[in-house]
């Protein structure tokens, strides 16, 4: 087993900071954005160094929500999209075929995990992650940096990369943007992410936040420089900057100049308040170019997805729907049900009546006819119970995204949002319901040009 040497070693590029606030220079190939390739669709933008075409189909006339199609190397996907996470090249017990049946055409793999097992040499020998897992649709991989920081609490970020102790023997290791690119090149995923400097958005250390944002930009340049297959793998940048909107805008500006095929908003879903989350997403989407997909990383609660879509985001991923399935929780349009609770032991209705997933559909129409009582009986005792609920939960989120998309195309998204929240939180009077209802302003008719209006303000909170 041999290590593939990164195309460019970090020592050469990381010499004195290349980040100066207003003089970003991008690689010449990247600056040339050709619109002519997609002349038939004026909204479409493709860049020479990308392997995707983004086709904007419809915009909500009230909110920032958009419906689009993303053409990727392994087929097209409709946006907005939820991407389930197949951490170690399998989606928690589901066969590739079962995953297809949920409607999924784009799923995640985690670079850190695939780097440990099966490792780069094996990935190269097999010919990438698609071949490894028998999955013929699209794959997105993260950079590996997030796991480094979240799993290995003992990691330290330096300019060169993430320093951490080997989980096996404790010797010091270093993950650089070049390593991350090299690994993701071996994985062969359709969308790859830059290595970024992630810190908790709730961190009070403003200096560190600024440093992380600026470093992420410098690392993006190193990622672009060492990315070997820009013509078949799409590198997305990741906007950082914590909850500081000024930092976020600066980061957007700098990264947009790098002209990556897609843009991710990172560092969220780390326990920040809902309205902080909204402000950040809004601050980013309002300055991001319209012709590129926007990916908000790490969110998966249905309410969060809806809100982020209203704010103009297109792509989401989260382990929550599949993880919570293994704990016996079913996501339904009327809320999350904990099917391990004894009250479901004699509930012979489907997981969600009317749901079109293969678990909930009755046997007569080709489904499995699984009841809540059976899930209660199997949950946390037989792996098949986890498989069934995982299928349902993934299907539920994908189908929610389809409904959202149709609502946007038919320009009735605001009504959809109202109905969704009423149904999802029915009869529950949690304090944060009020917070969620804060989203309403985003759906209200614009009185002033949308770009100048923050979707949520304290005043409106008081008004509800």
């Amino acid at each position: 087993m041999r290590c593939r040497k990164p195309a460019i070693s970090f020592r050469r590029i990381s010499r004195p900071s290349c980040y100066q606030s207003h003089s970003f220079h991008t690689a010449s190939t990247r600056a040339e954005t050709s619109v002519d390739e997609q002349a038939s669709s004026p909204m479409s933008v493709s860049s020479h160094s990308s392997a995707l075409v983004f086709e904007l189909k419809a915009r909500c006339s009230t909110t920032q929500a958009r419906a689009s199609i993303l053409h990727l190397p392994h087929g097209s996907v409709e946006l907005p999209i939820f991407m389930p996470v197949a951490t170690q090249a399998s989606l928690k017990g589901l066969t590739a075929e079962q995953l297809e049946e949920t409607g999924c055409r784009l799923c995640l793999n985690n670079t850190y995990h695939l780097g440990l097992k099966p490792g780069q040499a094996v990935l190269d020998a097999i010919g990438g992650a698609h071949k490894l897992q028998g999955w013929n649709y699209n794959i997105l991989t993260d950079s590996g940096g997030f796991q480094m920081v979240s799993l290995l609490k003992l990691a330290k970020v330096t300019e060169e990369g993430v320093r951490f102790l080997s989980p096996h023997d404790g010797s010091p290791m270093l993950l650089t943007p070049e390593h991350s690119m090299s690994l993701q090149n071996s994985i062969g995923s359709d969308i790859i992410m830059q290595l970024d400097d992630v810190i908790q958005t709730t961190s009070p250390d403003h200096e560190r936040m600024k440093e992380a944002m600026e470093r992420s930009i410098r690392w993006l340049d190193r990622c672009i420089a060492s990315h070997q297959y820009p013509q078949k793998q799409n590198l997305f940048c990741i906007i950082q900057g914590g909850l500081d909107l000024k930092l976020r805008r600066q980061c957007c500006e700098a990264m947009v100049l790098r002209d990556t095929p897609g843009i991710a908003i990172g560092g969220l879903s780390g326990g920040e308040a809902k309205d902080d989350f909204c402000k950040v997403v809004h601050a980013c989407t309002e300055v991001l170019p319209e012709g590129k997909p926007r990916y908000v990383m790490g969110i998966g609660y249905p309410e969060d997805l809806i809100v982020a879509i209203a704010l103009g985001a297109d792509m989401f991923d989260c382990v929550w729907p599949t993880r919570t399935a293994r704990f016996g929780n079913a996501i339904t349009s009327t809320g999350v049900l904990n099917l391990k609770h004894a009250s479901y032991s004699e509930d012979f209705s489907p997981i969600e009546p009317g749901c079109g997933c293969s678990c909930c559909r009755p046997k007569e129409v080709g489904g499995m006819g699984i009841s809540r009582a059976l899930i209660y009986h199997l949950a946390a005792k037989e792996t098949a119970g986890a498989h069934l609920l995982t299928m349902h939960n993934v299907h539920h989120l994908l189908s929610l995204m389809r409904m959202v998309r149709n609502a946007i195309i038919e320009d009735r998204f605001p009504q959809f949002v109202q109905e969704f929240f009423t149904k999802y939180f029915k009869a529950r009077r949690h304090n944060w319901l009020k917070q969620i209802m804060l989203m309403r302003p985003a759906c209200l008719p614009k009185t002033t040009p949308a770009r100048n209006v923050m979707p949520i303000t304290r005043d409106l909170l008081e008004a509800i």
Partner: protein
Amino acid sequence: MEQDSAAHQQHPMLSFSVAYAKSSTVGPRVGRLTRVGQKAIKTPHYVATTSRGVVPHISHDTLQKHTAVSSIYLALEDFIEKRITGAPIFKTPAKDSESPLRNYVAAQDDVLSILGPRRVPALPCPVHNTGSAISICTSVGFSQLKVDEYHDALRTLRPDIAITMADVVMHGTASVKRIEKSADRTHAWLRDACEQFTAHEKSSSKPAIFAAIPPIANVQQSLYLQDLAEEYRYMLSGLAIYSSTTAVDLPQALFDLPRMSLSEPGSPHSILKDVALGVDLLCIPFIGFASDHGIALVFEFPGPDVAIDEPQHLGVDLWSIENEASLLPLSPHCDCFTCTRHHKAYVHHLLQAREMLAWTLLQIHNLSTMDRFFDACRKSIANGSFEEDVELFTRRYETDMPAKTGSGPRIRGYQIKSSGGGEARKNEKAWDRFDGVAQQMAEAESGLATAEVDSKQLEDQGIAERV
């Protein structure tokens, strides 16, 4: 009772016919078990064993699409928690012709359901059976299952086939007296079952009864066997035997009943022995054991016709590192879902990563291997070449299954018996790895050098470099 026995010779829903038998007393035979509305099951065949109502690691859609499982064995003890009365399964809604058991576990209509009191293999219980109850193991602990309760459950749940209760001695060797008792109790329990079913049920919705025969010599339970052949023959649709030797020297009147074996064959060789004695249906726990331990079964019957000096392996251990980058199917000529869509390298990776899908893919493959195996057995019996083929198989393959090297899925309480205080944990702690790292971190900060063996590997894998 015996006046209309001829009219009741056959269950209205279930029938069995022997198509070919080497002899009319003992020996391999080919038959057909047919339930109205289902595809006929060609015998000899395996019955897929379930855990809590599902074939382990296989969800319902996968079972239907990617396996040829035609019958499942379910254990009542899997559906009882603290008490049998009021267990949720008994409240399953079912229309007239439907079986609450089938509805509860959401089994397909074309799969034959067989209900018995205990799992196969059953866990030995610390408390002995009594004259009116057997000891069972539920997911919340050991308990007793009364004969009456069991018969009520069979009537309510309406499996396609109901196995009566047997008094099976599970601890060591039984004394002569205990063996006698075992035969007597099983005898009495069968009589109760027959009386209950005659008294209560319409003939079309009552389950077909398979009489359980405990694993004791036929001479020691001759009275019971005689009664089965004479007095209760008209009530019976089959026999559930705990030892394949029971099939030898059965009373002639029982010859045309299907024989289902609940013994636990440890290898294909013992399956062949059972089949040679005339067993028609078998529960085969080793299929699941192999899958759990990362072993893909690769044997064929009677085996490849090539000159080989060394006997071949019965299975391939996919934990082994040599499969790391192998794009080959699990076994060369297999056309199962696993072998056509995936490869050894993926299953190896999934095992290493402890992903649930590893066991699913292995189950699909191993069940498919057994399908081919039994198919070949039936052909061989029908050809009259079974004995020679068994001999070839014995020569061509190793005697034992490959040793287990990797660990399997998390072990559940209902799968393993605790042997008393102070025993080691059955499942490794999953989350204590950081403790070691934290300590090493502390050491590293104090400037102590650490071993570099594994970080070298990490570096080779390209995830990071040492500094």
